């Protein structure tokens, strides 16, 4: 057993010992994976099938087919076009069976969601724990943030990362204000560095319709008013 600790049953191994079955299974799982990945990335960006089709220079029907795992005519060219539309790289490999079976077990939408290219994301700042003399007993980022800002501005990092939902009525009010006055905020999370906690807003630009992030310090919580790429 390796570090994953994953153990396949004898019955499972016997089932996979049939070569025809293995090949059918891989073919269907790859199609399921592509269909789910495209839908997840599209929905993450808030695009309709029609919007993705326009970016690909094709029709909504074609996007609908791409998101159908029973449609088996996807070409490498189409995959590269999809990757370009999402501004993401494409990765293809032929791993060993054990690795593939373990990695292939996660098809959740969150596992597919990725941000488009962002220069500052290539060298992410390493997160390190903050030691605040007055709040040294506080351990979670939410608790630390509450100590700094008060409860009204605190959101759950985990929830905002996945679902972009602030916690509590006060958080909902703040999010609502940000949604109406500035750019649509998809999520707000906390990012800790050596000396500070920053607010990271994930938002969707109304002009270029891509998902972006903007950071602000704890003393001036400003939601983004213009996309960094589209701002004149």
């Amino acid at each position, binding site marked *: 057993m390796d570090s994953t600790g994953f153990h396949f049953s004898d019955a*499972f191994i016997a089932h996979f010992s049939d070569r025809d079955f293995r090949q059918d299974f891989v073919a*269907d799982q790859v199609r399921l994976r592509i269909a789910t990945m495209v839908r997840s990335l599209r929905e993450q960006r808030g695009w309709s099938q029609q919007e993705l089709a326009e970016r690909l220079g094709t029709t909504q029907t074609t996007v609908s087919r791409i998101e159908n795992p*029973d449609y088996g005519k996807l070409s490498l060219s189409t995959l590269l076009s999809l990757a370009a539309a999402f501004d993401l790289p494409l990765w293809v490999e032929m791993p060993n069976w054990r690795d593939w079976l373990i990695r292939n077990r996660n098809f959740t939408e969150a596992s597919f969601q990725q941000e488009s290219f962002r220069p500052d994301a290539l060298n992410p700042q390493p997160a390190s724990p903050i030691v605040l003399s007055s709040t040294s007993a506080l351990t979670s980022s939410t608790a630390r943030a509450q100590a700094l800002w008060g409860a009204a501005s605190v959101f759950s990092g985990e929830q905002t990362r996945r679902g972009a939902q602030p916690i509590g009525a006060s958080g909902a009010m703040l999010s609502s204000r940000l949604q109406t006055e500035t750019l649509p905020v998809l999520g707000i999370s906390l990012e800790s560095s050596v000396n500070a906690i920053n607010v990271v807003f994930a938002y969707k630009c109304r002009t270029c319709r891509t998902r972006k992030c903007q950071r602000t310090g704890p003393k001036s919580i400003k939601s983004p008013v213009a996309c960094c790429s589209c701002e004149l």
Partner: protein
Amino acid sequence: MALWGFRCYVDGRGEDVIRAWYDDSDKKVRNKFYSRLQFLSGLPRGEWKGEPFRQLRGPYSELGEVRFQHLGVVYRPIGFHLPTEFVLLFPATEKGDDFNPRSAPDTALRRREEVLENKERSRGLDWLPFQ
């Protein structure tokens, strides 16, 4: 890790109707059925959607169908969710835009009631190894 297990409807004679259908099916259909169940077993309930799974509507909204195609035939086995398991009730296919047989959703709904009233009317799907 699997989030869902599967159960199959057992008729009045004690026969697992899903297994009987599976055993009679073409090998390619069996392989795809297994693949779809494997796929769905790892998804949170809210992500059972899209083409691989559809919730039925109207009077059948408690039911859902696992969808897959082979050689132009759309397979639509119908079932319903328990808290941690999906119970397969009827191995329908598609004809036109409707179920084949057309009575499949009604039969599945009746079978669902039987399963909910009597645990003996379903059996764990232990004849396919998912891990």
